[in-house]
């Protein structure tokens, strides 16, 4: 993730042969849209039956052979589970101030130590996971939806509408991203989690819009679409029923990776005190709080205040990236994407 936080124009890293080779036998097959591929199921070899599998079950198979993706998925389940059930599993209340135990290191009573007001860091990290998770998922889902609609409309109708929308996309992409986000959140965000998420959406939709537009542009000329048109299908039906399903692969991958990117960007904004502001917890806010009081009363450094929230961010994004990588291999084995 580069310093300047460019919006995702598709997956962060280019596709390559995945690190851990999975289903190699199925690579290279040109799977036509919506078609069905028959295959021989080994376990029924004796009876020589043909088990028909859908494209999705092949995707699922490829995903599950991707070891890192499974690790990532497991990690996400644990972490996001902790976030969802934050109220149940946190040992202290999130805002419980204990002025007798300020800035203490990790101990049995406080696994991650305490901060300047004696609040338990472990509890705060768990609540921080929850907030970051909410922001990440919200931004990913909503920006995907917006990008999908805009990309579909632009790609399908073409012409001046396409031109206008692409110019708007260019406008958003040309701006120095972090700077504009900082300005926008400083002035409109008001430290509120949902406002900040909305502002992030405003800049994240461009990536998926471009990809979707590309797919729509290329597919709208294909024969089966023309055939459907000839048999009287309307625009909406064509878009939704025939072209859209082919975009689902890249969309799912992009959305997954966007969760990680959104969490990173939000953490950076909050760290700089422009995004989500205290007392709302978010992992970036926790690190920024640590900067306000970096020392113990005796002059040493309270390293636990900075390390644990940051480590959590790293682990979350790592897991998200693993899952995204696995999804990309599962859903787009033929796709080799460099710079869009």
């Amino acid at each position, binding site marked *: 993730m580069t310093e300047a936080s460019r919006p995702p124009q598709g997956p962060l890293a280019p596709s390559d042969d995945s690190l851990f080779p999975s289903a190699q036998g199925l690579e290279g097959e040109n799977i036509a849209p919506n078609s069905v591929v028959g295959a021989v199921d080994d376990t029924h070899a004796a009876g020589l039956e043909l088990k028909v599998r859908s494209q999705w079950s092949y995707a699922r198979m490829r995903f599950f052979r991707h070891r890192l993706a499974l690790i990532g998925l497991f990690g996400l389940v644990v972490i996001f589970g902790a976030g969802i059930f934050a109220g149940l599993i946190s040992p202290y209340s999130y*805002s*419980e*101030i204990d*002025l007798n135990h*300020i800035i203490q290191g990790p101990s049995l009573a406080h696994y991650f130590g305490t901060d*300047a*007001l*004696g609040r338990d860091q472990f509890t705060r990290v768990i609540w921080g996971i929850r907030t970051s998770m909410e922001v990440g998922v919200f931004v990913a889902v909503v920006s995907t939806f917006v990008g999908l609609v805009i990309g579909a409309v632009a790609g399908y109708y073409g012409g001046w509408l396409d031109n206008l929308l692409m110019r708007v996309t260019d406008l958003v992409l040309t701006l120095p991203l972090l700077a504009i986000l900082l300005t926008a959140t*400083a002035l409109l965000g008001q*430290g509120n989690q949902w406002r900040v998420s909305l502002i992030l959406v405003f800049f994240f939709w461009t990536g998926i819009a471009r990809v979707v537009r590309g797919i729509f542009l290329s597919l709208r000329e294909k024969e089966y679409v023309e055939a459907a048109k000839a048999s009287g299908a309307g625009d909406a039906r064509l878009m939704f029923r025939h072209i859209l399903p082919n975009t689902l692969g890249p969309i799912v991958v992009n959305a997954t990776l966007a969760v990680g990117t959104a969490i990173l960007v939000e953490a950076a904004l909050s760290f700089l*005190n422009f995004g989500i*502001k*205290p*007392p709302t917890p978010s992992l970036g806010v926790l690190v920024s*709080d640590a900067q*306000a*009081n*970096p*020392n*113990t*009363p*005796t*002059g040493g450094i309270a390293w636990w205040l900075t390390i644990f929230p940051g480590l959590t961010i790293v682990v979350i994004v790592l897991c998200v990236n693993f899952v995204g990588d696995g999804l990309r291999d599962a859903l787009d084995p033929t796709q080799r994407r460099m710079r869009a």
Partner: protein
Amino acid sequence: MHRRVWFLAAAVVAVLGLTGSAAAVTAGKSSSSNASSLHAAPFAKAWANTPRTPAARAAKKTMVFGLEQTVTGFNLGNADQNAFYAAIVAGTPVIRGTYIINNKGKYLLDMASKVKASKKSLTIWIKKNANWNWLGHKSKPVTAADYIYTWKIITDPTSNVASAVGYSNIARAKAHGKKRVTFFWKKGQAFADYRDLFGYVYPGFALKGQKFNDYWHNCVCGNDGHPISNGPFYMSSYTQGQGMVLKKNPKWYGAKAKLNSIAFKIITDTNSEIQAMRGGEVDAITPSPESALSTLVHQKNLVYSAVPSFTQEHWDIEVGPGGAPLLKKLFIRQAIALGMNRPSLINALYGGIAPGLKPLNNTFYEFGSPASGKFAYFKKYNFNQKNAISLLKKHGCTGGPSSPSAGNNNVWTCGGQKTEFHFDTTSRASRVQSSQIFKQQLMAIGIKLDVGIHDPASFFGTILPNANFDLGEYAWIGGPDPSGFDAIYQCYDAAKNLGGSNYKRYCSKKVDSLIKKGEANFNANKRTAQYQQAAKITSNSIAVIPLYAPPQIFVYKRALQGASKSNNPTSEGPTWNLQSWHWGS
């Protein structure tokens, strides 16, 4: 070329055309310019010549002082430049006035040998040997003309002054020769806080042709760019954002400075400042309070001094129409005050860097004996949760906790309204923390706070002036004289320009009349009595809850002598006795 390209080219031309027409509409200077062409010598050269090792510095009789903020100018009367760090450099070391305030908050005669003030007039006898050293010119005495020029320029409506209070009370001036000047008050507007006037006197003769808003942005100099001073030092070089050098003024009329020069280095980042202090690159700093400073407290080679400053960190309780109706009831305000544990808060926020900092207990005085002992009127509202709860119960409130408890969730209902209030403050880290602490403390006795954090621009620009809040925490910059806070407690009257800073819309006729009398009372003892009476009334009205005075911190190398009394909590800052600093063994 393509048609589209023509269209775009036309668009570009249109934009430039619009710009040009806007230019035609408001021709002239840059719309944000502050034309000031006079500069001191550049700092870089002087800095290159500053020795880096302590031994060399001692030999050359020079030192390095770390300045924490970029300064925008040295005209301390100007609103734009009225900054603490500018005052440290250009205040008492370079440009002095009638009085100087020492580290105990006492006014001492400085450039004046005698001052006489009455309801009719203010007469100042200037010291015979007080003079201006304008480099490149023969030295001129400080005269009555300089005082009159100062008064005129500050009351000029086009001057962007920080405050004209006091100066605008003067009707006319009369010079008696060169060394005596008399100012006559306007009818009924005698100003008893006369000691705060003329703390900074301008050399009118050297500034001919310069406009108040434009001078001294980049130097402290006459209109030919050469440095000028009536203090122990003059500013020989300065570059904005980098630093400045003060050199000894050999023509000063007081005890000559013991150091030959002092380089002020601007280090805006606290961490760098702290490391520079520990590493010995700078010899003294006066940083704003941040908990990272705790690494400097116990260093053997450094002296660390933290004294309460003259800034009043406090709560305003809105008792006007813009606030919650319940806040108009005295017992509610009393309960709030009783539920706040101020010492515990101060210890949490400042324990590591200013141990022993105590809460403020007087609404007009902050420092020394007038603020303590029998004058500590607010002491009776010290932390007492049981009393708070019984007070609420006595007035018929129901639904709250019967005894204070940390995990309490019940909120009182008094007369049909819940004790739930908005609490607004700015986004500074210490205030965010104190809002959390108070929220928890008050919840323990059944009062709920909805905390709102705002950026300073909207807090000071919109929320406070519109009196649109319930409870607000912020700080006032004060001084040793109690009349500095008059505008906070006077009844608000926009037409008469009274009580402009009274955002909480507190109004008491008795306090108003006491303030009015005190403002014009030249008998020091009677005046103090009047202000203390006003302090008692305002303390018991609890429209303001004084919290604490943030510490003023001064750290310097142990080898630096003559600085033991330097940590001055007034706006003079630690350089008030800069001329006595020297390297010892």
